[in-house]
């Protein structure tokens, strides 16, 4: 169940097939942050993890909940299938400044089957948490599960990735 709050801003972002899951997360990061900002870097660092959640369409069924340091909470949902093709021309920018100040947090929705893996993968990103979509969401709950304490950028070893 989802309870909408009067102090929340909602946005819809077109996902697959209008964008790949990775492109969709990039669009969300661009919506919320300014290029080059600390928040932009932190959210970009988890692109692969967030893209998996988008590809599984958890972000269609439940919102990404963004809590800026001040101001209204932002809820972002993704739109998939034919609706995405129409939605990409109807995306509304944010006028509130998004995550321009330190102290923000982001809660990502996740299905129970993927929760343990994604929670572990996000353990280095203290401002970004994941929550089980089956547990619902109230107007006051933007938190989730995160076992980490400090921000970190995932290290990717591409040496074994192949192309023939």
């Amino acid at each position, binding site marked *: 169940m989802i309870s909408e709050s009067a102090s929340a801003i909602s946005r819809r972002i077109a996902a697959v*097939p209008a964008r790949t899951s990775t492109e969709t997360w990039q669009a969300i990061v661009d919506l919320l942050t300014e290029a080059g900002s600390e928040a932009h870097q932190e959210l970009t660092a988890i692109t692969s993890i967030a893209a998996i959640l988008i590809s599984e369409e958890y972000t269609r069924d439940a919102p990404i909940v963004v809590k800026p340091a001040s101001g209204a909470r932002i809820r972002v949902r993704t739109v998939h299938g034919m609706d995405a093709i129409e939605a990409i021309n109807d995306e509304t920018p944010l006028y509130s400044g998004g995550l321009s100040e330190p102290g923000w947090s982001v809660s990502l929705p996740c299905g129970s089957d993927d929760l343990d893996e994604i929670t572990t993968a996000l353990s280095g990103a203290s401002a970004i948490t994941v929550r089980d979509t089956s547990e619902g969401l109230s107007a006051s709950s933007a938190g989730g599960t995160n076992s980490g304490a400090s921000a970190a950028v995932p290290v990717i070893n591409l040496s074994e990735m192949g192309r023939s």
Partner: protein
Amino acid sequence: MTTGVHVNLHTYAATHVATGMLRGLRQIIRGTGLDPAYLRDRWDVLERGIAAWLRSRHLQGLILEVYDPGRRTGDDLVGRFDFKIDYGYHADGDGDLWLDSDAVAFAIRKNGSYPSQCDYLVVADTSPGRPDVTGWSTTTLRSTTGFTRQSIGTAMTGGSLGASLAYYTRSA
């Protein structure tokens, strides 16, 4: 579960199939007991390449090559899953965006699990002239001599695109 959406544009179909095949690979990796971290950590690079080469029509197939790092090179292939691309699956080019996760689940069930020490590579089989995508390098596929190819059938479609799924098991 089967989902479908009508579409007739190649770019949208390519995007749908690119993300769909990665979802399928993730389902296979998790379902056969492999470590999902390799795929998870490289998802953005993989998706960029697969989508680019589907859009440019250079991608011929996407291969999950499973190997045992404890075995001698040349004899270390343990199994393989292949998505093979058919750019003319729907001749009129207006096939639905369709993804059959049950077909992938069936392939996993028929293949069984891999031993815990196994590792894997994701390999894109491309035709000459492909555009370069950052993060990818060239490789040579391991020989499938001694393996039997089992075809599952079409796992996803979109526009004129179709992607069929097959897996290899050791036969000798």
